[in-house]
Structure formats: structure tokens, C-alpha cells
């Protein structure tokens, strides 16, 4: 299955294949393409905010709203989910020692729903924000953009549910009989957890989307205050799905780190059991904290306390992952090749993002930070600092496997340095901007507020560094997949042990981490 470049096939053969690796490649190409499209929108946003009062790049607030809406939708649903699904498609069947996903045709259908959903989101270019809160989204948001958003999200949601069913059945029902569930590799566990979470969470949002559509058509008034509806009800339905969705984005990245860290530390994972336990705990606790997005909506005190405790309950499980990573590295002989650099950087930023989240979950502090740039900084630290770093680490890790060639370690190091520095500079600064009181999603701000101007400019320079790092990344992916040195497929980094899964897959009684 390796080496499309060494044994090229016609593109249509890959496009219409139902084999799990081919579908995985399609997901990866799709996700990485939209990473760059969403990234361009991010650069436009940040460059615009570098020059307050000058309308640079964006001339009106309505366009600005559309840009940040589509940026958010793209990064979450067209980059993060597809990349996790792509890597999951390639590795999970191999990890559970099965020939393919449980339902290959369903798998391909689930993928091909993504371009349709993406087309609706990008051609509509809605201005509802990615959360599309009522009543704006049902009363004022202009159609057909908002309607295309609803249908696009509907299709992407169905795709998520189909692929989740596939992962659950593959792991639970198709794994090799000799492989106990507790010894299934932690990346597969992470995919199993997020798939179960998706199946539980997503139908609620699917219902909310239908209610939103019928409200927009004037057939109902679920969220329309003029028709006796309650906009807050939409928030409950939305966050019941999308707070767990935060973990759905996050856990695959953590699972990828579990693949990389023992390999480059050249020693066994510290604790498989605690990793499994922490995944399951986060999968459950993820549903206990949606209300913390809504403290300022007039929720009663007792409910807020419950949600605050539910949110804090995620801390021990997250801490178990960090502890597991550090304990695995302890006593090893660590090779800091690109995958390991990104994995360790991701752990550091995961911890920082988590610390900010703990402050955020405390209800009195939430009233200060709610709706400010603090929240933007916090969630981006998770999304780029942890999920982005985890995904990039895994892409470098799988590069020899997919292409049969090696990337250039110096360029990868340059990518890491720029991306790490840029992430810290951009998003730590945005926390400070939030404390200075700058609201999120603003098109412009007064030039009299010099601290806002300075902090925005610092943040924007950081964003440009991230952008530059991804230019290096893209150039490396393209150039070295065609011109890179052929990789030693048994051990591309010269770190000993067995590099890769096909070896283990052919040998059910040996190999990596027991699979």
C-alpha cells in the first residue's frame, strides 16, 4: 500500500477506491487542503486587525463576519475532523489487525459527503459565526448563505455519524480475536472514544439544525422570541453537541502522541491502562460541562456550580495523559526528530491551554473573560497548540510510510520553531487582549486604545510566523514526497525497533505495543 509515488496509479483509482488506506489518503488530502484555505482566511483576519481604522484587506464588517465564520467552520469541520478520520482510516484497521474498515463502501460514502458539505459552506460563505446563535441566525442572517450553512453542516454531521459507526464496529467487532481490547493501541482507543461521543452528541445538533431551518422558513418558532421561542434553548442544544466535540477534536491528537512518544523515547509506554482510563473518562466527562459556555445567560446558581464541577472534572483525566507522556519519556534516550519535537511542543501547549481553561471554567472569572479575546486565545491554544501540533507530528511520522521518502529534518525543525514561537506569541497575547477587555469577533477597534493596538500587532506578527511555518510545511510535503531521499522503511529515523504497522500486521503475535 505504500508509495503511491513509486508505483503510481491513476488518480481515479484512488478516488473511487473503498480501501481504507485510499479513503484515508483522500481524507488527508482534503483536510490539508482546507487547512491552507482556512489558514488564508486567518491571515486575512489577523492582517486586517494589525491596522485599526484602515480597512486593510476587508472593507466592511459584513465581509469580516463571513470570513471569520468560514475560517472557524473550515478549521473545525473541514480540517480537524477529516485529518483525524484520515489517519484513523489508515491506521485503525491495521492496529486491530483487520483487512479494512468494517463497512468499506459506507466509509467511502462518508468521505464523499465531505466535499459536498464543504462546497455548501464555502459557496454560501455565511456570516452567522460558526456557532450560529439564535435569534440572529433565524431572523436576520441572510439567505441563501445561512441555509447553505445549515445543509452543509447537516451533511457533514451525517458523514461524521457514518464514519463513527464504522470506527466503532471496526474496533469492537472486527479486531483480531487474539487482541484483547485493553491492549488495542491508544490511538485506536482515542478513535473509538471520539466515535462513541460523536454518535451520542451529533443527533442533538442535527435536531437543532432542523429546528433552525423550520424557524427560518417560518414554520416553527422554537428559537424565535417573537414567536414565543427561546434562543437559549438553541445554546443548550448546540453546546450539548459541541462541548463534547472539543474532545472529539482533541483526543485523536492525544492518541497520535501516544504513538510517537514511546517510539522516539525508545522505551515502552508508561501505562496503557491509565491512557485507556483517561480517554474513557474524558469521553464521559465531556458531556458534563456544556453549560460552562452559558454562565452569562441567566442560568441559576446551582446549575452553574454543577457545570463548573463537571468542567473541573476533566482536569485529572487530562493530567493523566500529561503524566503518562512525561513518565514514558523519563529514562528513555530521546531522539528529537520532527514528530517528537511537535509531540512534546503539543504537550507543553496542551498544558497551557488547559490551565487557561481551568481559570475560564470558574464562573466568576468567566464573567470577565466571556466574549473576549481570552476565549479566542484559549480555544486556539487547544486547536493549534495541541490538535495542530499533534496532527503535524503524525503527518511527519507517517511521511515515510505514505511516500517511501524522507522529509528534510532541517526544514522540519524550522517549521517547528516558527510554529511554536508563533503559536505562543499569537495566542498568549490574545489572552492578555481579553483581559484588556477587547471583545471577540470585532471588525475594528478604536486607535485610541493603544494597548489593544500593540497587543493586536504582536498577535498578528505571531500569526504571520505560523503562516510562514505552514508555507515551509506545504513546500516540504510537496517537494520531498517527490524528490526526498528514499526512506529506510524498516527504521526511517535510525532509532531501532520496528517502524511500522505492516510488519506487525503480518505478525499478529509480535510487534509494536502488542499489536
Amino acid at each position, binding site marked *: 500500500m505504500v508509495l503511491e509515488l513509486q508505483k503510481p496509479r491513476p488518480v481515479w483509482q484512488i478516488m473511487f477506491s473503498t480501501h481504507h488506506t485510499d479513503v484515508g489518503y483522500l481524507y488527508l488530502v482534503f483536510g490539508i487542503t482546507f487547512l491552507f484555505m482556512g489558514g488564508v482566511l486567518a491571515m486575512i483576519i489577523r492582517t486586517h486587525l494589525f491596522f485599526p481604522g484602515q480597512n486593510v484587506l476587508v472593507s466592511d464588517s459584513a465581509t469580516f463576519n463571513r470570513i471569520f465564520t468560514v475560517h472557524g467552520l473550515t478549521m473545525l469541520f473541514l480540517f480537524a475532523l477529516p485529518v483525524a478520520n484520515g489517519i484513523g482510516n489508515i491506521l485503525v484497521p491495521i492496529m486491530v489487525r483487520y483487512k479494512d474498515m468494517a463497512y468499506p463502501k459506507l466509509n467511502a460514502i462518508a468521505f464523499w459527503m465531505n466535499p459536498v458539505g464543504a462546497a455548501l459552506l464555502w459557496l454560501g460563505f455565511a456570516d452567522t459565526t460558526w456557532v450560529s446563535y439564535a435569534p440572529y441566525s433565524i431572523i436576520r442572517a441572510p439567505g441563501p448563505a445561512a441555509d447553505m450553512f445549515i445543509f452543509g453542516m447537516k451533511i457533514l454531521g451525517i458523514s461524521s455519524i457514518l464514519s463513527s459507526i464504522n470506527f466503532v464496529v471496526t474496533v469492537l467487532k472486527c479486531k483480531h480475536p487474539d487482541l484483547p481490547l485493553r*491492549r488495542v493501541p491508544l490511538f485506536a482507543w482515542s478513535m473509538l472514544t471520539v466515535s462513541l461521543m460523536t454518535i451520542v452528541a451529533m443527533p442533538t445538533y442535527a435536531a437543532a439544525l432542523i429546528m433552525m431551518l423550520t424557524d427560518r422558513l417560518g414554520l416553527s418558532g422554537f428559537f424565535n422570541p417573537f414567536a414565543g421561542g427561546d434562543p437559549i434553548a438553541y445554546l443548550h442544544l448546540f453546546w450539548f453537541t459541541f462541548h463534547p466535540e472539543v474532545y472529539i477534536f482533541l483526543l485523536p491528537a492525544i492518541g497520535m502522541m501516544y504513538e510517537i512518544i*514511546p*517510539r522516539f*523515547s*525508545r*522505551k*515502552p*509506554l*508508561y*501505562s*496503557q*491502562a491509565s491512557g485507556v482510563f483517561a480517554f474513557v473518562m474524558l469521553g464521559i466527562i465531556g458531556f458534563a460541562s456544556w453549560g460552562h459556555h452559558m454562565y452569562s445567560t441567566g442560568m441559576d*446558581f446551582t446549575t452553574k*456550580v454543577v457545570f*463548573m*464541577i463537571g468542567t*473541573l472534572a476533566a*482536569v*485529572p483525566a487530562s*493530567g493523566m495523559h*500529561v*503524566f503518562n507522556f*512525561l513518565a514514558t*519519556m*523519563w*529514562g*528513555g*534516550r*530521546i*531522539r*528529537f526528530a520532527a514528530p517528537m519535537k511537535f509531540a*512534546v511542543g503539543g*504537550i*507543553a501547549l496542551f*498544558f*497551557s491551554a488547559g*490551565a*487557561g481553561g*481551568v*481559570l475560564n471554567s*470558574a*464562573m*466568576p*472569572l468567566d*464573567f*470577565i473573560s466571556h466574549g473576549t479575546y481570552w476565549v479566542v486565545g484559549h480555544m486556539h491554544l487547544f486547536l493549534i497548540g495541541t490538535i495542530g501540533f499533534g496532527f503535524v507530528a503524525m503527518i511527519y511520522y507517517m511521511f515515510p510510510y505514505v511516500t517511501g521518502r524522507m522529509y528534510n529534518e532541517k526544514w522540519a525543525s524550522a517549521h517547528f520553531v516558527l510554529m511554536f514561537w508563533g503559536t505562543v506569541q499569537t495566542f498568549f497575547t490574545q489572552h492578555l487582549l481579553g483581559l484588556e477587555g477587547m471583545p471577540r469577533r470585532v471588525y475594528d477597534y478604536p486607535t485610541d486604545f493603544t494597548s489593544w493596538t500593540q497587543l493586536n500587532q504582536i498577535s498578528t506578527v505571531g500569526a504571520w510566523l505560523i503562516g510562514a511555518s505552514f508555507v515551509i510545511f506545504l513546500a516540504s510535503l510537496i517537494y520531498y514526497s517527490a524528490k526526498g531521499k528514499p526512506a529506510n522503511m524498516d527504521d526511517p529515523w535510525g532509532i*531501532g*525497533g*520496528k517502524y511500522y504497522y505492516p510488519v506487525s500486521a503480518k505478525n499478529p503475535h*509480535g*510487534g*509494536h*505495543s*502488542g499489536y
Partner: protein
Amino acid sequence: MKTTLIAISIIAVLGVALVSQIHFAHAQLSQTTSAKQYLNLRAEVWNEFFRMTTAAFTVGAIVSGTMIWLVWRFRESNPKNKSPTKWEHLEDPTAGSYEEEGH
């Protein structure tokens, strides 16, 4: 022993977090709308913020410090880390995990 220590640590962290929140919650419950009390509550909120920030930075310094030391100490280019570890003599150094292999 290890499990007990971890459990105690988790309970302690949760305890500190919750006690500070309950303390603030009482202040919030007793709030009124007078300007003086409003300002007091603002001060209280920021006190809470700085307390929690101090706690976060302290824990953060410990974890980050540990991570930086780990990276420095256990990198393969460290002179103390030249010789292969015991796991590297195995066919696959990453096979299994501590609890399975009895390391």
C-alpha cells in the same frame, strides 16, 4: 502506594479549586446592586483571578520545568545518555507497557 499518592494529589487539587470557588460563590450570592458593593465584588473577582493565576503559574512552572529538564536530561545527545537503555536491547523497545512487562 503510587495509586494512593496520585489519588491524594488529585483530591488536593480539586479541593483547592472547589473551596476557592465556593468562597466566591457565597460572595456572589450576597451581592446587591449598591455601587460600593459592586466595586467590592469587582475587586473580589480580580482577587480570585490573581489567586487562580498564581496557582496555575505555580503548577505550570512545576510541570513545564519537569518537561524542560526531561528534554534536556534524556535527549540522546546528552553525554550521560550515550549508552543504549535496557529496552533498546529488545527486538522492539516500545513493545508492551510497564504494567504488562513488569518493568
